[in-house]
C-alpha cells in the first residue's frame, strides 16, 4: 500500500490553525502576527561580475509586536517569498530581525558542483513545521517551491515572544547576467505549532 504524504498549503494550515485556536483549553491565549510587503514589487539588481560585492535589495515590513501568551514559545514562522529571477543560484536571501540578527533562508543554491541556473522562488521558508524540505535545484519553474527548510534555523524567531518592529528580507545577487523582481513577501509568526497538528499520512 502506498502512503501519500499529506502536505497542507500555508493557507490551509493557517485556516486549520485558526480553527484549532477555538478548541484550545479555556484560559489559554494564542495569536499570530503577519506583515506583508507594501513596497513591492522591488527590483533585485544584477550582481555584476564581482561575487565578493553583491548587489543587495533590502525590503522591509513592519511586524506588530505580539505575545504568544500561554502558548509560548511561538509555534511557527513562515517567510513567504514570490521572487522572479532567472538564476536562483545567484541569490542569498536573509531575514533580518529588528535587532539585526540575520537568518539565512537560502544561500546560492547549488546544482551539483555548479550553481542552480533555474528560475524563480515561489514558496514558504518555514520554521517549526513538519514537512518542510531542504531546497534543491529543480529544472522546472519555480526552481524553489512549496514548504522550504531555511538554510539556518528560524528557532531564534520562534523561541520567544515575537519582537515587533522592522523586519527585512535581504536579497543578495552574487553573480552577473540575471536580475530579478521581488513581487511580494510576507512574514508570519504563529503561536500554535500547527505543523505538528496536521502532519500525517494518507492512503491512496
Amino acid at each position, binding site marked *: 500500500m502506498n502512503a501519500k504524504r499529506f502536505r497542507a498549503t500555508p493557507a490551509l494550515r493557517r485556516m486549520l490553525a485558526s480553527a484549532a485556536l477555538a478548541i484550545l483549553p479555556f484560559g489559554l491565549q494564542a495569536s499570530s502576527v503577519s506583515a506583508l510587503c507594501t513596497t513591492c*514589487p*522591488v*527590483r533585485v*539588481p*544584477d550582481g*555584476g*561580475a*564581482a561575487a565578493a560585492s553583491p548587489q543587495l535589495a533590502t525590503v522591509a515590513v513592519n511586524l506588530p509586536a505580539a505575545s504568544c501568551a500561554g502558548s509560548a514559545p511561538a509555534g511557527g514562522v513562515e517567510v513567504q517569498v514570490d521572487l*522572479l529571477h*532567472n*538564476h536562483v*543560484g545567484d541569490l542569498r536571501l536573509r531575514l533580518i530581525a529588528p535587532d539585526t540578527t540575520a537568518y539565512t533562508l537560502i544561500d*546560492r543554491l*547549488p*546544482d*551539483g*558542483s*555548479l*550553481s*542552480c*541556473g*533555474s*528560475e*524563480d522562488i515561489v514558496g514558504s521558508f518555514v520554521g517549526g513545521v513538519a514537512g518542510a524540505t531542504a531546497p534543491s535545484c529543480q*529544472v*522546472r*519553474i*519555480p526552481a524553489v517551491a512549496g514548504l522550504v527548510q531555511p538554510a539556518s534555523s528560524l528557532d531564534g524567531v520562534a523561541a520567544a515572544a515575537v519582537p515587533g518592529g522592522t523586519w527585512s528580507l535581504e536579497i543578495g545577487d552574487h*553573480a*552577473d*547576467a*540575471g*536580475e530579478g*523582481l521581488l513581487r511580494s513577501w510576507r512574514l508570519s509568526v504563529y503561536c500554535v505549532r500547527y505543523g505538528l497538528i496536521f502532519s500525517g499520512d494518507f492512503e491512496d
Partner: protein
Amino acid sequence: MPRLPLRRRLLAGALVPLLGLVGGMGSAQAEIGVPDTVPAATLLLPYFAVDLGNPNGAQARFSVINTAAAPRLAKVTLWSNLGVPTFSFDLYLEGRDTVQVDLRQVFAGMLPQTGPGRVTLGSQSDPSVAFAGCTAGANQALGVSLPVPVRLSDAQIAHLAAAHTGRQSASLSNQCAGVNLGDRVARGYATVDVVNECTVSNPTIAGYFAAGGTGVAGNANVLAGTFTLSERPGELIISSAALVHIEANDSDPRTSGSGDYTFYSSYNAADGSDNREGLGGVWQAPLPGSPLLSAGTDLLVWRDAGGRAPVPFASTSCTAPSSLFPLQQTALRFFDEAEQTFLFNAPPPAPNPPPPPVFPFPYATQMVEASSLSPFAAGWAVLNLNAGGGTGAPGGVTPMGPIRQSLVMVRSAQGTNASPLRLAVQAANVAQQKDNGPNSCSGGNTSSCMAFSPGNF
C-alpha cells in the same frame, strides 16, 4: 562556485551560432540581400511562444550584443502573430555589452533595466554615454523608454497578454492585435533596432525612420544576438539559433530608394527610408527527419504582408483577421531522399476540379509541423512564399506585386533535450525579385530557378 548548467545551455549554448561572427568580428563579410550573420542594424526574433498559463510550457528569451566599443541604444518591439506592433522598450548597451531579454519576465511586467553605469566597463569599451531622452522614462500604454519602470502597470501587462494571445485589448480600443488560436500561449515576433534616442516610438510611427539613419532609428551595423525557445515537459528542451541579422545600407540601390523592398517596407509605405535589407521570398529547407528521432521536424515561418501594414482589427473572438490574411503562397514542393516529389495542395488531373486552396502559413509568424504538409519522412522542401500562381490564390494588387518577404527556419529534434534551429537556404531574395521579376533566382542558378517557377509545379 562554477556557473550554471541551465544558463550554459540556454545562453552560452545559444551563442554557438555566433561563434563565427564573434571570432571573425571585423572580418565578417556583409552582403545586402544575403541572410548572413554579421553585425547588423536590426535583429529579428522570427517567432516566440510564451505559455502564460504554464511556466514550464513554451518560453523564449534572446540576447542582444553590442559588438562595437561605443555604447548604443536599441529599441525592442514586440509584434503580434499578425505583424501588429504591440509594445516597445529601449535597451542601453555599453560597448561590447550583452543584454538578456527573457520574454517570460517581460510578459510578467519585468523589463530589463539598463543604463549607463550599471555594469563595470571593460578595457575594450568606450565610456558611457547619456543619450537623448533617456532620463524621462516616458511610459505609455504601448511602450516605455529608459529608465524602464520597476514593473509594467497592470494595464500594460493585460494588454501584452491580450494582444499576443489573440484577445481584445483595452489599450487598442478593444480591438485585436493577433489571431486567437484557442490557448493561453502568447505568440509573435520581435525586432531590435539600433536607435539614436530614447522614445516610445516604434517602426510603424512616422519619423522613426529617415534616410541615412537620421530618424529615431540609426543605421549602425553593430548588433548581434541569439535566441532560445524552450519547453519543460519534464526535462528542459531547448532550440537555439542566431537572431536574423538585418543590415542597413543607405547607399545600396536595393535599400535606399522609394519602392525598394526593404525589411520594414510594409510599415513605411515602401519609401526605402529604413535602409534595411529585405529577406527572402523562396526558401529551400532541409527536412532531416528520422525514425530514430522521437520528435518530428518543424518549420518556423515568418512572413510579411507585401507592402501592406497589418493593423488592429475589430472582432469579438479575434478569429477573423483583416483581408490581408490568410497569407498565401505560390507553391510548396517536397522531395524525399530518393528524389520523389510531392506538391502540396496539387490540382488533380483534368477534368477534376481543383481543390480549395490551403494556406498552411497564414500568419505573420508560426511554427508548423512539416509532417502535416508532406508524406515524406525526410528530404527537403522548396517553399515559394510569394503570393499568387501555383496553388495559391491571386496575390492581389499590393505595392510589391506578388513578391512577399519571408524567412524560414527548420527545427528538428536531436538527442533528448536539444532541437537546433537552422536557417533554411535562401533561394531568392525579394530585392532581386523586385528588380528582375518574381521568377528570378539567386546567382542565376538554374536548379534553384526551376524550383520556384510556377510553371514547373
